[in-house]
């Protein structure tokens, strides 16, 4: 194995001056040489600590070994056994909390850059064009509807098609990919990558239907009772933006992060007027929150022409939930971070445009249920910050539409998430499974993808045992 190499191989990034003016991808990825050099650092542990920390348990040492040997396609095949979206996850996983966060090398040195390696082999595969579509051996007659084309839906559809089912994906928007196309910006995850995945899955025989809003265009009950779907997977995500409910929140210039990012990403408002959808980005922008969504909004605002962008966060740097790499990129790009402040009110001008955000200073108290220290307002510490645009990125919850329009689908009262068995993803309605953000609340791409994959297993099991009298009982009670 040779000597320990403490330092990770750097990944090239576009220079700051260049990237803040464009939506092109920031991180450029490893070259083959760099990838092999980084792979060399891995100890190929017999009992790897990285693997259990990956939500889908990719055999990390095995794929890195293949990179060491220069067999990149073999590496990607190993990854794809557990993760069908490596080009995406290699880019957007919070690796520092997952695989890389548990790498033994990381105890003393830099951990192995697992995400970058994963990304490299996935991109390599795409470039060589050697993505082979396995013909499905045995077609099955049953029809499955997959609702939503985010990572959970895409992966679920892909798995079920490979098992021979007749799968249709229904998506309400006009592009497929869920958050991967309407939320995460081009500079972090190029749209072409998502398109590639969708094309691959359609080659497997999956039918993709856009502009189809389940609950309105057709209800879930109609899909099952009239349109002949034998099972349904709900991967509808958590797309309903939350607001704080403070005075002035509906002033002009105050966006939900979802609206802001949808205008930019899905509607390409940054290319207005070549594209028809406009966006308003003033000189001074405040983004409320410090998760991935907030970072994406802040960095998009900068690229769309803002002169000064501030992140306002009610806790401290330590509690930020954004991927470390993106927070770092944001700081490099000159985004200002203001910690321990929370908006309490917005002030507008005579035309109804926001002109100031009034914030209150916070201090950290005891840890709350999430384990993070709870922020407490310091009375009398309010002050105002002048702004032209505000983007509220304090979280999303699932839309209530499907549950409202479906008989017998239970929802957690507090979070609006769907009730589903943790192992089998079976909901309270027979034949309906659910996974991803709609069950967990806003989480991560890899968790959603993993849910889609595991759910497919149980959907298969259900369809093969549909006549068992207590099948749904079995699936909803499974531990």
């Amino acid at each position, binding site marked *: 194995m040779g000597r320990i190499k403490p330092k990770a191989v750097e990944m090239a990034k576009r220079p700051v001056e260049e990237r803040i003016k464009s939506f092109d991808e920031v991180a450029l990825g490893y070259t083959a040489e760099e990838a092999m050099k980084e792979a060399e650092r891995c100890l190929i542990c017999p009992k790897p600590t990285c693997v259990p920390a990956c939500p889908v348990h990719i055999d990390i040492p095995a794929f890195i070994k293949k990179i060491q040997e220069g067999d990149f396609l073999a590496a990607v095949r190993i990854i794809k056994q557990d993760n069908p979206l490596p080009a995406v996850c290699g880019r957007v996983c919070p690796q520092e909390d997952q695989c890389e966060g548990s790498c033994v090398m990381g105890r003393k040195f830099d951990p192995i850059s697992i995400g970058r390696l994963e990304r490299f082999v996935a991109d390599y595969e795409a470039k060589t064009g050697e993505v082979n579509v396995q013909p499905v051996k045995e077609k099955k007659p049953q029809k499955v509807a997959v609702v939503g084309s985010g990572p959970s839906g895409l992966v679920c559809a892909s798995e079920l098609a490979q098992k021979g089912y007749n799968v249709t994906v229904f998506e*309400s*928007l*006009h592009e497929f990919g869920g958050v991967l196309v309407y939320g995460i910006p081009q500079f972090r995850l190029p749209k072409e990558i998502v398109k590639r995945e969708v094309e691959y899955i359609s080659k497997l025989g999956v039918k993709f*239907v*856009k*502009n*189809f*809003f389940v609950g*309105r*265009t*057709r*209800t879930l009950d*109609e899909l099952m009772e009239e349109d002949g779907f034998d099972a349904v997977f709900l991967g509808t995500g958590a*797309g*309903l*933006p939350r*607001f704080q*409910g403070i005075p002035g*929140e*509906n002033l*002009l*210039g105050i*966006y*939900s992060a*979802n*609206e802001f990012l*949808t*205008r930019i990403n899905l*509607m*390409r408002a940054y290319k*207005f*007027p*070549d*594209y*028809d*959808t*406009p966006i*308003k980005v003033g000189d001074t922008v405040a983004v409320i929150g410090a998760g991935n969504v907030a970072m994406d909004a802040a960095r998009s605002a900068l690229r769309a022409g803002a002169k000064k962008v501030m992140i306002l966060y009610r806790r401290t740097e330590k509690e930020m939930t954004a991927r470390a790499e993106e927070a770092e990129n944001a700081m490099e790009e000159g985004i200002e971070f203001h910690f321990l402040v929370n908006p309490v009110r917005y002030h507008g001008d005579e*035309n*109804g445009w926001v002109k100031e955000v009034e914030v209150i200073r916070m201090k950290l108290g005891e840890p709350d249920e999430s384990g993070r220290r709870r922020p407490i307002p310091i009375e009398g510490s309010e002050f105002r910050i002048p702004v032209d645009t505000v983007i509220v990125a304090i979280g999303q919850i699932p*839309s209530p*539409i499907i549950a409202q329009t479906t008989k017998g689908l239970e929802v957690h009262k507090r979070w609006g998430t769907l009730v589903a068995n943790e192992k089998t993803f079976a909901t309270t309605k027979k034949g309906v499974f659910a996974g991803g953000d709609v069950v967990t609340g806003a989480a991560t791409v890899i968790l959603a993808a993993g849910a889609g994959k595991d759910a497919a297993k149980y959907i298969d099991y259900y369809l093969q045992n549909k006549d068992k009298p207590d099948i749904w009982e079995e699936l909803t009670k499974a531990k």
Partner: protein
Amino acid sequence: MGYKILFKEEVGPGAYRMIIDAPHVAKNARPGQFIVLRVHEKGERIPLTISKADKENGQITIIFQVVGKSTKHLSLLNEGDELADFLGPLGMPSEIDNFGTVVLIGGGFGTAVLYPMVVAYKEAGNHVIVINGARNKDLLLLEKDLSNIADEYFVTTDDGSKGLKGFVTDMLKQLIENGIKIDRVFAVGPVIMMANVAKLTKEHGIKTIVSLNPIMVDGTGMCGACRVEVGGKTKFACVDGPDFDAHEVNFDLLMKRLRMYRKEEQESLEKFEKELAQNG
């Protein structure tokens, strides 16, 4: 999946009726619901009310007024052309019942939205009174369609070129003063018109529903662009509405929010018209 334009006709100056091939929308469409369409691949998503849904033939009728780039572009398409996207039905269906006597008020583009409501209220057994208002007689929309269905049909024009000289609210006031027992009012049109109707009916304690038209993006409840204030609470018009209790709506806010992109809308339209001129 193409969304083909099967039929097109001009129904007034700058106003068009189109029939679109959209079986998936027609199947479940109910009065008061709308669609979101994109004219072309770089287009914005614009909401338009479903004027008629023909379930047998899988067709949707829309009626729209040209006000900016997207509606202008739409108006230039012809029978046989296809739209890039067509999503629906969206929004909550209107609450239709036999209330007794219902006054339906439409102004400007609102008259297009009004038409399916007039049909629905009539079918539910109501005594239907329609007030159709415009700035002048040339701008009046759907006169024949509306007067054919309505039990009583009135026209108001700002300049008096037809019907009563004045606003729709002047006509409504007359009806109230004449002692007609009105059980419900439904109004749709310019925000200022809806606000004034609401003010008048509130004084007389007449339940009034308005159909709100804020700027929308997705139309499915995931962006919050369409937020309106009703009864002091924030609502998303695309999923909670578009119909709301007029006496609870913050019209001032709606008016302001509709102006948010005025400059960009102008820019977009001018660019488009220039391109049209260049291409002959």
